[in-house]
């Protein structure tokens, strides 16, 4: 008995551990990359943890400063540049090592080495350098965040409204063509978003909705309405109709019953649907590229930034920026998701 228990528990924790590792390693990889300086990205072997500061050596030689950085892998100082131009040092420290200093600070520190002895300095790295750079080199990054939130919000509203109506009627009413409707919904899901994006663009232009978030949300909703209808119809089917009937018996009208019984019971399902809708809208860049290139969403901005720059640390920062709101959203609805997985029996 005990040994069986032990095996079950061990298997369980091994499984959980594997899952965690499979999820956490990639996350750790790009979160740490996002705080690397350019110098560290080309470090080999790669450090497990990003550096928070650099140990520098400055030598005065031939009327020039020699700037070296301590290379932990080889346990020696590696020469980076030789110059006496403070602007060059400032830019180099900033771009390669993510160290933000002004010319005077650099000159003050460096000039101590003119006495003949090399001097050793430790400078703090600016951990958020890549994030700041990301926002400064991509124009209207701030606007794009607002856009993404709008597009996701509209997608949630549109797909929940139409999807749950369809889901409710599929679950509760008998009508001609019901099975055909369910099948059609599935077929709609089969089209890749990009495929419908181009014909939709024509409609959106005619309706003056191109390059707007509502227009984008309408296209995202096409697939999501179908998904929402599928999920909610099974949720509504799962709600014992006697729960609604009991409400009628005990004095409630149809509307009161829907508000006080059906809706709260279906709520966890709605949350799951809005999560799918959110993620579909938030993560898409291709459809946005076609429909809203002049008014981009965050994920489109990041997509372009990654595509056009070779700086992997910047791309990583962009990825983290894209993930954070999704994480926040998920944590907010976490409680309801827990409910969905069986804490409340319907």
């Amino acid at each position, binding site marked *: 008995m005990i040994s069986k228990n032990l095996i079950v528990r061990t298997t369980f924790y091994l499984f959980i551990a594997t899952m965690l590792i499979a999820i956490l390693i990639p996350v750790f990889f790009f979160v740490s990359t996002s705080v690397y300086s350019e110098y560290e990205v080309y470090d080999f072997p790669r450090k497990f943890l990003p550096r928070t500061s650099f140990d520098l050596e400055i030598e005065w030689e031939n009327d020039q400063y020699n700037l070296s950085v301590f290379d932990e892998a080889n346990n020696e100082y590696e020469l980076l540049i030789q110059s006496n131009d403070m602007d060059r040092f400032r830019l180099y420290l900033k771009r390669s090592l993510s160290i933000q200093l002004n010319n005077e600070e650099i000159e003050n520190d460096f000039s101590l080495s003119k006495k003949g002895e090399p001097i050793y300095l430790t400078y703090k790295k600016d951990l958020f350098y890549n994030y700041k750079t990301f926002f400064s080199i991509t124009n209207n990054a701030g606007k794009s965040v607002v856009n993404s939130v709008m597009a996701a919000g509209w997608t949630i509203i549109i797909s929940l409204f139409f999807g749950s109506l369809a889901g409710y009627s599929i679950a509760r009413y008998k009508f001609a063509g019901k099975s055909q409707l369910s099948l059609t919904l599935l077929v709609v899901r089969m089209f890749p978003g990009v495929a419908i994006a181009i014909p939709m663009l024509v409609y959106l232009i005619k309706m003056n909705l191109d390059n707007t978030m509502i227009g984008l949300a309408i296209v995202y909703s096409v697939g999501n309405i179908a998904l929402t209808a599928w999920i909610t119809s099974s949720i509504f089917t799962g709600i*014992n109709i*006697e729960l609604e009937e*009991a409400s009628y018996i005990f004095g409630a009208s149809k509307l009161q019953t829907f508000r006080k019984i059906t809706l709260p019971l279906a709520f966890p399902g709605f949350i799951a649907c809005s999560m799918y809708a959110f993620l579909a809208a938030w993560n898409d860049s291709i459809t946005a590229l076609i429909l809203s290139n002049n008014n981009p969403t965050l994920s489109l901005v990041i997509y372009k930034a990654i595509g056009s720059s070779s700086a992997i640390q910047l791309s990583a920062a962009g990825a983290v920026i894209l993930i954070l709101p999704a994480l926040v959203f998920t944590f907010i609805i976490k409680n309801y998701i827990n409910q969905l997985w069986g804490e409340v029996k319907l």
Partner: protein
Amino acid sequence: MEFLELKNLTKIYQKDILAIDKIDLKIKDGEFLVLLGPSGCGKTTTMRMIAGLEDVTEGEIFIEGKLVNNLQPRERGVSMIFQSYAIWPHMTVFNNIAYALKIKKMSKEKINETVKKVAKMSNIEEYLNRYPSQLSGGQQQRVAVARAMAVDPKLFLMDEPLSNLDAKLRVSMRTDLKEMHKRSGATTIFVTHDQSEAMSLADRIVIMNTGTIEQIGTPNEIYHDSKTMFVADFIGSPSTNFVDVKIISKDNKLFAKNDAFELPIDDKFNDKLHGYIDKDVVFGFRPENLVLSSDEEKLFDIDVVLVEPQGSHSVIVGRLLSKQIKIVSDEVRDMKNIKTLPIKSNGIYFIFDKETEKRIC
């Protein structure tokens, strides 16, 4: 005065499924009426039409003399306990019970008072703040009862409320429900397929079969004066033994005869059996009306198949003319090695028409 009246009530599902076929029923004020019948005979459908959850295809329903066919459930003043309990999982026990009262816009204090009162009657006072998923089946059942009582209804509808409980709880809840009925005096319609439940609870029992009413009567009438073969078969455990016989007449005396026996029939039945001479009929013997006898007095022998000891009595399962016969005997002796037993009738039996399956006498 009739509290509830069903006139010519008919229900057809999906154009061709005849679930209820023209039933008529009158229920007196304060009566505890049990609808009894096998699964699928239309008990739930009848109840749902009375509650207003199902449209009436044809016929009329009157509550206190008022036609209610077109009234919404909430306008009918009925209260219901569902087979699945149908208590709302997202509300606490308190809110479940208070639901109807809140909709009626009752004052907070009055709601509190009412909920406390019915919770006490149903023995669930300690659980008012719990959610249904934190309660056992029996406790959930009590919540359903308390919720139904809280609205102080004129008519209680209960659809197999005890069928999801284990045997012991079922019997004790049965007593509780009966007590509750005595106290509230509300007219009650109770649906069940369990005949012992029906017998112990009912003022009157309505036996239903495939959408029609077979017989209406008190538990004793139903048992001792079954009007059809169906009722004789359905009521009683073990159920009635049916034996095919032919009525013959010898010297103005009637006999029931088949390959195994020839039973003289009491002269008082002569009139009723007049048209059946030389015809096949069905005899129905309740298990306790076939008794062990001596070899001299016996009517026939049965081949004993097995004996089921029940403590106070035994059920003897035997065969007569290759049909199964069950008799109840309070002789509790060891019958392991007995192959055949002599049996006689104690003079009490039903005689049924073979075609119509209706009782002749």
